Structures are given as structure tokens and as C-alpha cells.
């Protein structure tokens, strides 16, 4: 069954074509003048290198490995993120460390190496979901481009310093406590 489409009835003024065109020209001229006298900061266009878009909360950008006040890494090298990662871009190597204040003399785990291949990462946020210690965050930096593949391989210290400038924190490149040398277990 066909649908009868009723055509809009035009008044004689609209059928002259000249009057509607003049009305349309008024509209476009209005837009022109408004856009011409709008300061650049208030226009819809974000002029990229000078202006940057404020990303919404919950945006999943470049990762950060969180740290404690004293600069110790929050990550306990539980490998949950590595397991959860659908792109298999995280690779962790664990080590043991011991500090009387923090670990009461027992050995604890932390990553010796924490690598993320940013070329493989799909920014799905599964590592953030999986982390039991809230140690890895995906934050708002979206300017992830490099001239070669190697500089897209982020190591532990890269990841801990990704937002250091933005947050006004110091860049760190050393754990506050030394790692315990691997003991040979004598049976």
C-alpha cells in the first residue's frame, strides 16, 4: 500500500522564488556576520595546535602508573592487567624488594620492568578495571604520535612520568628502595 505524500502548499510569494531566496540570503548573511565578529576562542572550531580540546571525564588516553608519596610504585606486579589485556600489549617482569618501614622486613613484589606497547594498545581500559591496587590509570592525554616505532614502547619509568608535568610532580627514574638480590635457594 502506497503512502500518499502531501506536497507542501506554497503561497504565491514563495512561488516567485525571489522572496524565499532573499530570506535565505538574510539567514546566511546573519551567520556570516555572527561568525565574522565572534572571537576565535568562542567559535565552534578548535584551532588545534594553539587550542586543545578538554577531554570528558572517563576518557581513556595515555596510561599512567601511579606512585605513593615517597615515589614508590603502587603496582604489586600481580599480572592481572597483563592477563586482562585483550591486545596483549603489557609485559611485566617482577622483582622483590624489602624495606623495614613499608614491608616490615618481608619481601614484597613490584615490577622490575613494566612495558606497554602503545602501538598495540587499544585503550580499552581493561587493565584499569583489572588492577586491584588502582595502580594504572588511563588519563586524558591523546597526543600519542611518534616518528618511530621504538619511541612508542613505554617502559616503567616512562609510564610513571607520563603525567608528571601535567600534575606538577617531579620526574622520577629510581625506586626509593633497592631491590633484594635474587637469592639462591639452598636445599
Amino acid at each position, binding site marked *: 500500500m502506497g503512502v500518499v505524500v502531501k506536497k507542501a502548499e506554497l503561497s504565491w510569494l514563495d512561488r516567485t522564488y*525571489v522572496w524565499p*531566496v532573499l530570506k*535565505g*540570503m538574510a*539567514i*546566511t*548573511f546573519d*551567520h*556570516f556576520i*555572527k*561568525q*565574522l565578529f565572534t572571537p*576565535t576562542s568562542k*567559535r*565552534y*572550531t578548535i*584551532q588545534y595546535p594553539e587550542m586543545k580540546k578538554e577531554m570528558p571525564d572517563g576518557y581513556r588516553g595515555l596510561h599512567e602508573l601511579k606512585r605513593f608519596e615517597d615515589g614508590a610504585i603502587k603496582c604489586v606486579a600481580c599480572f592481572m592487567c597483563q592477563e586482562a589485556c585483550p591486545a596483549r600489549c603489557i609485559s611485566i617482569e617482577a622483582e622483590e624488594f624489602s624495606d623495614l618501614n613499608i614491608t616490615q622486613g618481608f619481601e614484597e613484589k613490584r615490577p622490575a620492568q613494566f612495558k606497554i606497547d602503545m602501538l598495540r594498545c587499544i585503550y580499552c581500559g581493561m587493565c584499569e578495571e583489572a588492577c586491584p591496587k588502582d595502580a594504572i590509570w588511563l588519563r586524558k592525554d591523546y597526543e600519542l604520535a611518534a616518528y618511530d616505532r621504538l619511541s612508542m614502547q613505554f617502559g616503567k619509568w616512562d609510564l610513571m612520568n607520563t603525567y608528571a608535568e601535567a600534575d606538577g610532580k617531579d620526574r622520577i627514574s629510581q625506586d626509593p628502595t633497592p631491590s633484594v638480590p635474587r637469592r639462591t635457594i639452598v636445599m
Partner: protein
Amino acid sequence: MDKLASLLHTTPAIAWMVLKVVIVFAGVMSLAAIFTWVERRGSAMIQDRIGPNRAALFGKIRIIGLAQILADGIKMFFKEDLIPAAANRGLFFLAPFLAFVPALLGFAVIPFGKSFVSGGTTYHLSVLDPGNGMGMLYPLAIGGMAVYGVLVAAWSSNNKWSILGGMRSSAAMVSYEIGMSLAVVSIFMTAGGYDPAEIIKAQGHQPWTWNIVRQPLGFIVFFTCMFAETNRLPFDFAEGESEIVAGFNTEFGSMKYSLMALAEYSHMMTASALIATLYFGGWQVPFVKDPSVLLSVACFVVKLVFFAWVFVWIRWTVPRFRYDQLMKLGWKRMLPLSMVNLVFHAWRMSQGH
């Protein structure tokens, strides 16, 4: 002028002629080039965008993106100039010039300022002096030649889309030429001559005695036909991305394409000069009885730029016509309207005398 002429071993008349030609064509061509930028910026502003504002001289001086013209020119100049294997090579080379030259030539008879007397000789500010016997018939004839550029470009590139675009465009031009000519004829009648100088003189310096007020119907017809004549939206049937790729200039690249694009803008300049001369008093300054030469030239340029801007403005306001709508408008609306205009003014003149 005499000193300059003797310096160059020519007569003052020739030196003045060369000066006029250089001024007019350099002026029109640079205006056309600037309007490629104005079109892009203007359309951007109309659509709440920003448009090309990045191109900068030496990477520093931005001058609101005007360097884009230069950048485009350099880019076009260094592009590869491809000729399709099956193209008609001679005509393929000739087509951009056939499109470009008529667009500029039409400007030759249009007075762009008041004539002045210096040292006993009268200097006329138009490339061809008034009383040359061609008058306004010349730009109309040259304008009719512009269709060859489109048609030759379309045919020589040996491309089905191109030839479709060329045929559509030439059909549109032929249909609209008649309405346009009849509108102009009624101006010839009321002005009592077809020389642009006479037409301008007949219009006087008061805006309410200009032809736009005397013959509004003729103005609407002429203005609409000018859009069809310059192949611009809403009548751009030589092109059409969704239907026939790029239309008549599909196969053209590099400077050839650039020349084609520039031809459109030069045509626009000539068309707005015609509109200003025929309907808006040419170089006459409103309310000023005897303007100085510079003022009259400035007034003409302002009118020219304004109508060129109206061309841009309308392009980004009105949607395209369908081909049958174009033909219907041309033959069933514009032609009868200009006939009515002609008969009405003939009747008025017969009552007046």
C-alpha cells in the same frame, strides 16, 4: 604621459592604451585570484567554519590566510600535467585559454571611471574608447564565446562525464542568453544607445534613477541569467560531483585546471562589472553630481566587489537546480519575463513621446 611615451619610444596614445590594458587586466586577474580566497573564507563563515587561515608568508606572517592564493598557485604549478591518452591534444591545450580569454575580454568596453581631460586630450577610463561602434554588444558576444571553453574542454578530454557536463552547460548558456539579451535590449531602448558610456550617462547620479529602480524585472532576469552565464551555483551544470564527477574539467590538472578555475572567477568579475554598469550606474557615485576621477574609480570597484560578493553569497545560500528545473526556469519564466519587460518599456516609451 607624454614623457613616459617618449621614454618608451611610443606615441602617448599607445602608452596610455598599454597602461590601461595592464591596469585593467592585472586588476581583474588579481581580484579574481583574491576572490578564490574570498569564496573559501566567505563560505566558511556562512557555514560557521573558519576557512583557510593558516597559509603564512615565510611561515610567520599570516595575513588572515591571504597567502593561500600564493600557496595554491605554487602547488598547482608544480603538479604533474597529465594528458589522457585518448584526448585530442591540440584542443586539450587550447581549452583553458578558450575558457580564460573570453572571460577577461568582456571587460574591455566597460568604463571603470570617469573620463578626464588632461593637456587638451580626453582620456577615457575604459580599454576601448566609447564610440567604438561595438558598445555593450561586445561583452555579450564575448560572453557567448565563453561556452566554447567549456565545450572544447569537455569534448577534447574524451570523457563521458566531461561531455555530459559540457553539453548541459552549453544548453544552459544558450537558453539563458536569450532572456539576458532581451533584458539588455530594453536598457538599450530606454538609454537610447548601446554604448556603456551612454548607458551610464542616461542613468544619472541619483540612485533612484538607476536602471535597477527603473527596470527591476529586467534586473532580476539579467542577474539570474548572469549566474547561468558564469556557470556558478545554483546553475553550475558544467560540474556536479554527485552526477558527473567534476564535469567538464575532470581530466584537467595542474595549471590547466588552475586556469579553468580562474576563468570562472574572471567571468564573475566581468559579470559583476556588467551588472554594475547596466543597472547600478557604473562609475557614478550616488548623490555626487561631479565626482573626481579617483572617487569614481573607487565607487566602481566597490560596486564590482559587492556584486562579486553577491555571487559568492548566493552560491552558498541557494541549493542547485535540477536540469529540467533549469530549463523550465530559463524558457518558461525568464524568457517571458524579459519579453514582458521589453514590451512594457516599449509601451511606456511610446506613451511618453
